């Protein structure tokens, strides 16, 4: 049964105007996690990084794992919504904004994490290439400098990519709201009237952004992988890291997206809009990524094992058999053995099925980054200087607070912006009858062709 245009508008605007008790409980939990993280960061700033579990030779662990994890999550959003827009997949309409929201917030968290994990955060501004009388510039050969540029570009890119499609919705909210809310949304809507010229310009802008954001997203995670690949550390220094990380990013991103959509569907009662077909398609996408991830992991480990160079083998056996074996096999179970059967069998590929699979994938992908970083650093070249690593409560708190921050941002976002784009749903409604699509304002052909 097709919801009518009015019903769409009413359903999607409802969360903006009143929130249930459960919403405030969720916000409270997320805010408390975030506050715990801020307190932990304050203590770490006061005392020093020593409150973490890092030591020599393991100088990176939870900090870089969380960084790569959150930047990984962010890639699914833009990539999926961009690709779906470019390929005109009709089922994309309710999915794109959730995805873009995940991207923006996880890039934001990903950008904040390095600030919290460097030894002297108050000097982080030296990463900015400002001209100074000291004739000192950042070192442009350093992968961290590339990270800085790549992530700032990606943050601005994905924010604009999120903001453009929401302008019509801001206008819709502006028209129905009053008082202060009206003033805010009038500003946010940038004076949108829905004239054909505005629609035409919006379409072109979204089209350009969709085309541009894909290479930026791919480049960001390649550069993040070069934080490892550009060193001589065994099991890091390999050319597979670029594609491996991008595949891993899309993989964990889709999983996060499915999870977020499942939660939204339940809590914001969007059953009519986030229908099983969406979970079906995303589930298939998750299945392909799981297979691709397994292929990359197998290829990397096989080449290391087959090459049999002693430093590499020291790290290899460490994660396959010795210290990190339980974590390694948990990762393989989470990323491959659980998701593939669930997603492959049509009967299991229901909403709850895909949600379960993606939950394990998110955990698995966090472990995967952890198992790239820590075993290699612990067993680097000279056996005398090998070390062991154990996290401390500060690192656990900071990790939990990153999830808390994501949840908080997402919950607040769902209060201020309709999670599903109203105008796109309406456009989708009209095109359903096989008639060439005409924009709400007449006289203009919209992007997609006949169904």
């Amino acid at each position, binding site marked *: 049964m097709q919801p009518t245009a009015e019903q769409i508008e009413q359903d999607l605007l409802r969360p903006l105007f009143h929130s249930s008790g459960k919403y405030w409980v969720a916000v409270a939990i997320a805010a408390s996690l975030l506050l715990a993280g801020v307190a932990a960061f304050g203590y770490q700033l006061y005392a020093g*990084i020593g409150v973490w579990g890092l*030591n020599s030779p393991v100088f990176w662990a939870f900090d870089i794992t969380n960084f790569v994890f959150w930047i990984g999550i962010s890639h699914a959003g833009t990539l999926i919504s961009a690709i779906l827009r470019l390929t005109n997949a009709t089922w994309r309409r309710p999915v794109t904004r959730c995805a873009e929201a995940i991207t923006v917030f996880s890039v934001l968290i990903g950008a904040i994490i390095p600030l919290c994990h*460097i030894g002297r955060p108050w000097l982080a501004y030296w*990463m900015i290439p400002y001209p100074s009388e000291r004739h000192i510039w950042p070192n442009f050969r350093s992968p*961290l400098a590339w990270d800085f540029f790549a992530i700032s570009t990606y943050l601005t890119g994905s924010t604009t990519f999120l903001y453009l499609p929401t302008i019509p919705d801001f206008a819709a909210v502006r028209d129905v709201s009053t008082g202060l809310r009206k003033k805010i949304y009038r500003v946010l809507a940038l004076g949108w009237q829905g004239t054909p010229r505005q629609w035409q310009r919006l379409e072109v802008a979204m089209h350009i952004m969709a085309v541009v954001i894909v290479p930026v997203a791919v480049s960001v995670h390649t550069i993040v992988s070069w*934080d490892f690949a550009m060193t*001589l550390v065994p099991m890091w220094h390999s050319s597979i890291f670029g594609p491996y990380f991008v595949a891993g990013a899309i993989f964990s991103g889709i999983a996060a997206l499915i999870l977020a959509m499942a939660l939204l569907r339940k809590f914001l009662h969007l059953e009519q809009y986030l229908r099983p077909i969406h979970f079906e398609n995303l589930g298939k996408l998750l299945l392909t990524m799981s297979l691709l991830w397994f292929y990359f992991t197998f290829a990397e480990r096989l080449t290391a094992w087959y090459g049999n160079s002693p430093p590499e083998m020291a790290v290899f056996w460490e994660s396959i058999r010795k210290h990190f074996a339980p974590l390694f096999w948990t990762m393989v179970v989470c990323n491959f053995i659980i998701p593939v059967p669930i997603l492959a069998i049509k009967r299991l590929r229901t909403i709850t099925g895909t949600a379960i699979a993606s939950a394990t994938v998110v955990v698995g992908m966090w472990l995967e980054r952890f198992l790239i970083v820590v075993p290699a650093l612990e067993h680097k070249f000279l056996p*005398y*200087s090998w070390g*062991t690593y154990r996290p401390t409560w500060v690192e656990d708190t900071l990790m939990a607070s990153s999830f808390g921050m994501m949840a908080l941002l997402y919950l607040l976002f769902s209060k201020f912006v309709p999670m599903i784009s109203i105008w796109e749903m309406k456009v989708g409604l009209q095109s359903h009858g096989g008639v060439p699509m005409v924009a709400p304002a007449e006289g203009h052909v919209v992007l997609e062709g006949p169904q």
Partner: protein
Amino acid sequence: MAHKWGMVVDLDRCTGCEACVVACHAENNIPTAGEDQAARGRAKHWIRVERYWEGDFPNPRVRFQPVLCQQCDEAPCEPVCPTYASYHTPEGLNSQVYNRCIGTRFCANACPYNVRFFNFYNPAWDKPLQLQLNPDVSVRSVGVMEKCTFCVQRIKAAEIQAEAEKRELKDGEFTTACAQSCPSKALIFGDLNDSASEVARLASSNRGTKLLGELGTKPNVTYLERGTWEDATHG
């Protein structure tokens, strides 16, 4: 011709007495971490004597290997530092500029020799132990990476002295704290560009190898292999 400071470690002379380790602590204001921090892997030794067992009882063999910063020409830690805190000086030293370091710790991860140490906490000396601190060497604070500097304060002092006396630096006029204290003269420091210097002569010996040389880091520390009883003619 600019200096190119280098060192030769004669593994046949090194007895593992670790006088170099304590001399380095005394010269370069390296703090002791205390039992708890040492247990967490934060003890700092700019030079360490690595020991490897080979074989089992009744005829085990031990190999001692003093390891310090190799001041590599192609140092993996230099390109990765985002703020130029780790860079190569014209005199061939891999310098660590403490106040430019923001503590990303990327250099320590990139270093294959694990000779870089991080100040996880502000170092603390129970008074009056701090009176021993060498005023020529800066006391590092929290969040900063540190490593062997080939006793750069001694290099600078000697260069300033030579410049004041308008003369060239002579080989052996000064040396690093570890080489000076090493009883069996296993550590020899000097200017590799000065062909008359002892270190240059020894660095070209056929016993010379480079630690992890296969990684292409071009270290400036040459290890002279241990001799065996058979290959030396005995009188």
